[in-house]
């Protein structure tokens, strides 16, 4: 294993327990997953809380970290339910929690100081002050917004590293255009339904912040009064060509987003990324 491999992490999603053996055989450093009702994903792509222990045990047996995505914005009336759920699952071997709510991040920091906290992509960190806000809260890592330029990523990474805070970039994902990712209510404005999600009772399907399910209202054909169409569709991106600059900028981790992706496709992306990392070793 090269110095570069040790320095940088590749993080991939795991959406089903059946997928786990395939993903554990990939050349990745960490897996992230959600538990039903509490992550920004479709409910079918989340785990039961009873599968968490097995997930963590198997991940650790292959030398990989288990990261819990708990980044959905829950109701103020569900704060205690969220906390009880976390208290149940965090001791089962979770290495880190990806979250969006600052008060929850502080609570995890105070009660589980050995667990890493990552400020989720949905926190929309766009400036040094925002990044350091999360640093003050006690996060170990900030997942940077896909809207940032390379220069901004470099500024943020250098500044945060002086406090021992890492940065992460999602290399594969969806970049919204109509609004900044993390601040969008277009989907829920037109279509939102309360759904029963099992152990967690109420899910606001249609709100990307409150359920992870976005109906992509922006991708409809929107025309102005002159009949001109405004192109607002989100774009799927694969920023592997930016890797050399991101490595130079000091980015610590690279995530491949999109839960529910076919594991074969995921494997292809991981191989391409690992290969590119090895090619770029001279940059370190």
């Amino acid at each position: 294993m090269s110095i570069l491999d040790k320095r940088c992490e590749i993080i991939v999603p795991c959406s089903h327990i059946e997928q786990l053996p395939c993903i554990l055989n990939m050349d990745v450093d960490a897996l992230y997953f959600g538990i039903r009702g509490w992550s920004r994903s479709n409910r079918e792509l989340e785990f039961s809380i009873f599968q968490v222990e097995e997930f963590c045990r198997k991940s650790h047996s292959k030398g990989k970290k288990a990261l819990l995505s708990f980044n959905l914005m829950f109701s103020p009336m569900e704060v205690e339910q969220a906390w009880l759920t976390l208290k149940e699952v965090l001791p089962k071997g979770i290495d880190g929690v990806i979250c969006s709510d600052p008060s929850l991040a502080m609570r995890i920091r105070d009660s589980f100081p050995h667990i890493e906290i990552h400020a989720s992509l949905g926190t929309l960190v766009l400036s040094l002050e925002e990044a350091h806000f999360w640093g003050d809260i006690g996060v170990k890592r900030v997942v940077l917004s896909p809207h940032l330029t390379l220069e901004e990523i470099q500024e943020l990474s250098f500044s945060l590293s002086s406090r021992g805070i890492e940065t992460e970039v999602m290399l594969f994902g969806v970049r919204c255009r109509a609004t900044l990712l993390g601040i969008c209510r277009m989907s829920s404005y037109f279509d939102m339904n309360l759904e029963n999600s099992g152990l967690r009772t109420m899910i606001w399907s249609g709100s990307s912040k409150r359920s992870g399910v976005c109906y992509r209202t922006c991708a409809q054909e929107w025309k102005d009064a002159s009949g001109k169409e405004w192109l607002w569709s989100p774009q799927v991106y694969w920023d592997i060509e930016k890797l050399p600059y991101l490595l130079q900028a000091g980015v610590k981790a690279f995530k491949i987003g999109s839960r529910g992706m076919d594991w074969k496709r995921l494997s292809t992306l991981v191989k391409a990324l690992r290969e590119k990392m090895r090619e770029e070793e001279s940059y370190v």
Partner: protein
Amino acid sequence: MFELSTHIPTLRILKETDLSAYHSLYLGDPTCPHVPGNLSSHPDLLKEALYLAKEQGKGCYLSLYAEPRNKDLPWIERLLEHASSLPLDGIEVHNLGLVRLIKKMNLPFPIHLGSFANLYTHETAKLLHRMGVTKVFPNPELSLEEINYIRTHAPTQVILQIHGKIPLGISENCFIREYREGTCEELCFKPYWLASGKWTLKNLGRATVSGKDLCLIEYLGSLYWRGFRTFYIQTLRESKRYIETIGTIYRRALEKIDQGIDDYIDQSSIGLMSELSSYGFCNGYLFRRSGHRYIGRLFGGERISPLEVRKEEWSYEE
């Protein structure tokens, strides 16, 4: 007693509009620093506007740009240094980084958290209160029960939007400049409506707001007697007549409610509001529905059966 506020983006609008209905004003347009004459990116104009508004007895809050990047931080810091010597009553931010910056600069002003800041829980409101935040706009996606829960479980005051377009998102791009030719001066203050089938939206350049106007006039009494006292009307890029008329309707209604008058809706105001609304009304997310729907007896609104409401309340209990 209650407070009614709105945003006033420019000195021209401040000078030309009768703002007697409003107790306080958010000075500046938080959606884009390049809005011509934006009070939150022109310190000299801000000072003039502030003294003018103070002469009218208004509470004045500076409304900062909602989504600053690193390149914006130096000018925002200079603006804040300038503002530190002004008699402001508070600063509105939509961004947790700016809460940190104001705290770091040790500015004496209370902070109001704007609607783009994604506040969803009372615990976060409590945390931010320790950082100087005194008033919050909860995320518009929250229901009335949830907003009330934050109001009653956190030391911050909750500001409730009772009328106007709902802020739905903000982008890094100005779509008006992208799809129209012209300068900001020529383009910015015109209305830009977008349609997709029967759905409508309004674009403000970088920000997108609802096509329908959120309207809570028929629930105002109930909101008041639940304990809400801090109300806001969203009037960015609306006409002078809209700002004046809607403000006056709500101010009169609130004064009647405050005096214990049940029949607080002046029937003529229903027609006036309809006249000023291009695409009708909605209640936002207050009743656990998609934001564009209108639940109620006015404006041809939808009714929810009591059974449906009760079923949801049961399943939502802690």
